[in-house]
């Protein structure tokens, strides 16, 4: 059995503090690199250079952006309802840190072994929508209000196929603990058993993180900034940070459920895990820079009329096949 943080540090409080430190370090470093990667990937896809002047290959560009955002004035507009407006970035960021503590990175790298980790992940991931709604409703600006309402409807519409796809994996693995699901997949990753569930999961996950072609809550060309129109300085930086951390979480969940977590021929477990996560993130970025944006009602129709029936059918077929085996 792998030694989790509680065994290493003795009392649980110290373990929790260490886990938070590790997660925050991982997430912030990750967000910095992901923003840089997105700008470089989008530049390459658009036949241009992207940031090159700041450090080798523009690596320091995001660091400068973050320092500048830290140094910006935090405007709190008067027409804003303060409680909602100020709590929104926090509300959006707390679930992300919580979810990160549930992921087993490799054989013996796990913060804490929960046997129902999957339920916790799904619960927390649907909490981050509160942050978006608080931001939209709180900033008392018509564009943000539209963005907030759109994000709620989209989130509900894409939570259902997400859970149904995950259920199919749980049926096959017969366990809710991420650690055991990953362990089961040592010979063959589940994507071969459940290709349809994997596709549905990935589409719903892209919608979950509000990224194109499902980025209608902060549709730049229609709603100016969507829910984060009224945020300036590091508060806006938090939304930016949360979006990229959300991407990491969703891709990590996808690797554990479908790509077999840390299993891989030669390299150590953690490296395989990170390679798979970054590959999925690259695909997500690829989506963003090729597809135009779906219209609001088409997006909902796409989920309710296509993804949900498919996911339910997939679930039934899996149950049937397992029954016969």
């Amino acid at each position: 059995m792998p030694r989790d943080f509680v065994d290493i540090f003795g009392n649980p409080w110290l373990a929790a503090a260490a886990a938070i430190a590790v997660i925050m370090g991982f997430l912030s470093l990750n967000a910095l690199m992901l923003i840089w990667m997105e700008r470089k990937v989008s530049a390459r896809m658009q036949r241009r250079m992207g940031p090159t002047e700041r450090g080798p290959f523009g690596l320091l560009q995001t660091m400068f952006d973050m320092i500048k955002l830290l140094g910006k004035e935090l405007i709190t507009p008067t027409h804003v309802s303060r409680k909602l407006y100020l709590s929104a970035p926090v509300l959006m960021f707390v679930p992300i840190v919580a979810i990160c503590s549930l992921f087993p990175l490799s054989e013996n790298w796990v913060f804490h072994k929960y046997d129902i980790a999957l339920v916790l992940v799904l619960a927390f991931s649907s909490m981050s929508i509160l942050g978006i709604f608080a931001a939209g409703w709180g900033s008392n600006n018509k564009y943000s209000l539209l963005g907030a309402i759109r994000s709620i409807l989209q989130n509900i519409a894409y939570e259902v196929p997400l859970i149904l796809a995950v259920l199919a994996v749980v049926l096959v693995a017969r366990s809710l603990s991420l650690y055991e699901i990953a362990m089961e997949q040592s010979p063959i990753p589940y994507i071969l058993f459940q290709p349809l569930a994997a596709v549905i999961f990935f589409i719903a996950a892209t919608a979950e993180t509000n990224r194109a072609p499902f980025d209608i809550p902060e549709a730049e060309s229609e709603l100016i900034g969507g829910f984060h129109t009224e945020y300036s300085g590091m508060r806006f930086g938090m939304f930016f940070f949360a979006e990229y951390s959300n991407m990491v979480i969703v891709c990590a969940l996808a690797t554990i459920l479908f790509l077999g977590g840390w299993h891989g021929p030669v390299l150590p477990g953690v490296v395989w895990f990170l390679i798979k996560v970054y590959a999925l993130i690259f695909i997500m970025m690829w989506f963003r820079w090729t597809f135009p944006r779906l219209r609001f009602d088409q997006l909902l129709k796409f989920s309710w009329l296509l993804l949900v029936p498919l996911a339910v059918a997939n679930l039934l077929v899996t149950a049937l096949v397992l029954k016969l085996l």
Partner: protein
Amino acid sequence: MLQQETKSTQNGKPSVEELLREAGPLVHLDVLDNLLNQARARSLWPLTFGLACCAIELMATGAARFDMDRYGAGVFRPSARQADVMIVAGTISRKMGPVIKALWDQMPSPKWAIAFGGCTIDGGPFKYPNQYAIVEGADKLVPVDVYIPGCPPRPEALIAGILKLEEKIKAGKNFKA
């Protein structure tokens, strides 16, 4: 310092403010200011905001050949709350004046303005006596940091303007024009 000396001795002992002023700032923030200025100079987020012909050259600078993103300036923020530099590109008509003033006030504080094109310097080709329709010059509305002449100026001129603005920000307080 001599002149300072005579003032304080007239009323006997030096007043508290003079002592403080001589001692200099209690906390030296120059290093932090310098660091912030270096970061601000290297990541200028322009506001998506085109008025007329110069807006097309602004888009050309954002496009592939003259890529502004190389200098970190390619992130065009539509909302004024998240923008650092307002590039006034095009003729400012009298009807548009108050809108520009409102946008300028909405931008968070370390903000700069680039007057891009002849119309924003002094009305450009549309300037003639008793011109009723345009505001002749962006500096009548917003404090402009860098003026870029041309009608429309070429994208290289805009990049040169942005680099000049970076010089100004990096130099911080002791910037000599």
